[in-house]
């Protein structure tokens, strides 16, 4: 399958053509970043918004912390004595971006949110690619998003997190010159030396360039690196490349791209 569009955003306050600002304002930082990156990726792919929900169009999103910005807010209201906000509570599920993008773009098919940690974005792309490859979908938006509030930053203070949303639009194979996802794998391996050995064995020399995902972007790291690789492939810098995302806890994901 081919990569038909990409978008990488680093702020929840961006603007984009066709954006429903009312929809955007009700989301938390993760939601806005995920929504913006997905929306911009779809705009860049040039696909139209269908008249009715399309059962063959969907979204698979990866995130490490998801909507913990909204969770922080709802937790404070629950602990206090004031009025609770049903609208805020509705935003405390990690598939918020799936729902909001599905409404705006009438994505009626596959909908999954992967929360495996820093590898979740690459896992999401792998899952989406297989759906397209196996003929279950004609278009899947896939990638990762992370948004942070102060409390969340304190919780991971040592790791200097950055906000980012990185999304790719995957469609069935297009003509020669298109960038396509040639495969991928994921596994659990806490031993760093064994990770290198298993990644090398799986790639078997198929990648001319291997990029390690930036850990500070968490689940957006793999998709952001994949977008960089897509640009390099389109520019003719390389003919193949791989992105490797690793969570020190154990999960590893590898994505292979080629022209």
């Amino acid at each position, binding site marked *: 399958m081919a990569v038909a569009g990409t978008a990488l955003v680093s702020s929840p306050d961006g603007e984009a053509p066709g954006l429903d600002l009312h929809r955007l304002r009700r989301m938390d930082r993760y939601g806005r970043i995920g929504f913006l990156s997905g929306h911009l990726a779809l705009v860049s792919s040039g696909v139209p918004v269908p008249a009715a*929900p399309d*059962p063959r169009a*969907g*979204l698979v999103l990866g995130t*490490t*912390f*998801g909507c*913990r910005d909204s*969770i*922080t807010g*709802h*937790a*404070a*209201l*629950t*602990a206090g*004595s004031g009025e*609770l*906000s*049903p609208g805020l*509570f*509705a*935003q*405390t*599920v*990690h*598939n*918020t971006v*799936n*729902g*909001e993008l*599905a*409404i705006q*773009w009438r*994505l*009626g*098919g*596959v*909908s*999954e*949110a*992967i*929360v*495996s*940690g820093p590898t*979740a974005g690459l*896992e999401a792309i792998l899952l989406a690619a*297989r759906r397209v490859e196996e003929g*279950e979908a004609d278009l899947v938006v896939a990638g990762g998003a992370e948004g942070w509030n102060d*409390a969340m930053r304190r*919780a991971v203070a040592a790791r200097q997190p950055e906000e980012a949303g990185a999304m790719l639009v995957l469609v069935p194979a297009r003509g020669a010159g298109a960038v396509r996802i040639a495969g991928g*794998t*994921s*596994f*659990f*391996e806490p031993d760093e030396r064994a990770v290198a050995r298993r990644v090398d064995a799986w790639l078997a020399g198929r990648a001319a360039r291997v990029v390690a995902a930036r850990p500070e972007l968490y689940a957006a790291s793999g998709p952001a690196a994949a977008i960089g690789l897509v640009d390099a492939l389109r520019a003719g810098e390389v003919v193949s490349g791989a992105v490797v995302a690793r*969570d020190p*806890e*154990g*999960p590893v994901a590898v994505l292979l791209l080629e022209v």
Partner: protein
Amino acid sequence: MTAGGAIATLGTGVEPLWAALVAGRSGLAPVTQFDPSRYAARQAAEVRDVPADPLGEVGERAHRLALAAAGEAVLGIDGAFTGERAAIVAGTTLGGNLAYTGWLDGAGDGSHASLAAVTNLLAARLGVRGPTRTVSVACASGTAAIGLGAQLIERGEADVVLAGGYDALSEFVFAGFDSLRALSVSTVRPFDARRDGLGLGEGAAFLLLEEAEHAARRGARPLALVSGYASSSDAHHMTRPSPSGDGLVRALTAALARAGAAPEDVGFVSAHGTGTTFNDRMEAAAFRRVFGERTGEIPVNSIKSGLGHTLGAAGALEALMTVLVLDRGLVPPTPLTETLDPACTLDVVRGSARPVAGLRLAVSTSSAFAGTNAALVLEKA
């Protein structure tokens, strides 16, 4: 699927839970974990005695529920669930949330607050080196986890997969659903004309899924086959389901297609069945559209009036129940439901468990916030 593990308000372990479900018991009772006097609703289906982590490392309630169910599921596998061909897929709505919100309140150090904590912990303890994945699509998480787990085997990425879901009750969740006016203030009775909402619960269930030859090599008897899975979006509203059932129809139709099955093959439906008017009527509409004139002839149940709505565990508990229905030919009743809503023209099993002869194929469905739906097709082994 060769083995399972489960914990919920009505029992710890698959067999005690099955016995309680067949008896039509309900575990909904006054909440004890926190003072509910601030809220309109006062009941939930709590697990009274959540087992401690056998290694003493994990305090998070949701994670202890998950460890208990997962531990039961792999109990008899004796070293066959380890290495690069073993995988784990866990589903949760808010796993780790008690650790995270506790840390916000200055309690604890926030360890095990990660959404992937259970998956990583199980993989590390069991020596799993294949794919591991955590999925969070609100109340459809357990169903999605089992579907994604089965697909790992279908695609040749693993030989054996531990897949399931878990979630714990908390004031955080209770307050949220209460603010949405979604909680029952009387009796939780899905599809009943007098229903007024759902009752929350907590629990976990894990299924051990094996590639057929892997199971045969170790002499394990398959209880059921996971034949199809699909997810969909309503693309309608963040908390209200599409009244026409469009989204659920898409998931159910796609799951049946994936299984190579037709709607005529389905002999039992495990409904999401929360007990809210929006959900129950949406589901009835969706089932009518998928099953047509046969809708009123297919036994349907909801066990949420027995176990409560256990969020990320719900789909896994319901899938496990569906496996046992296929294996044992008996459908547990929908506890507390008596007189059906005329808008829900379904054959809702009520009163007592119903024997079903010749059952071959069943479906289990979930519908969630953000408009996500998931459906599993399960087949008699």
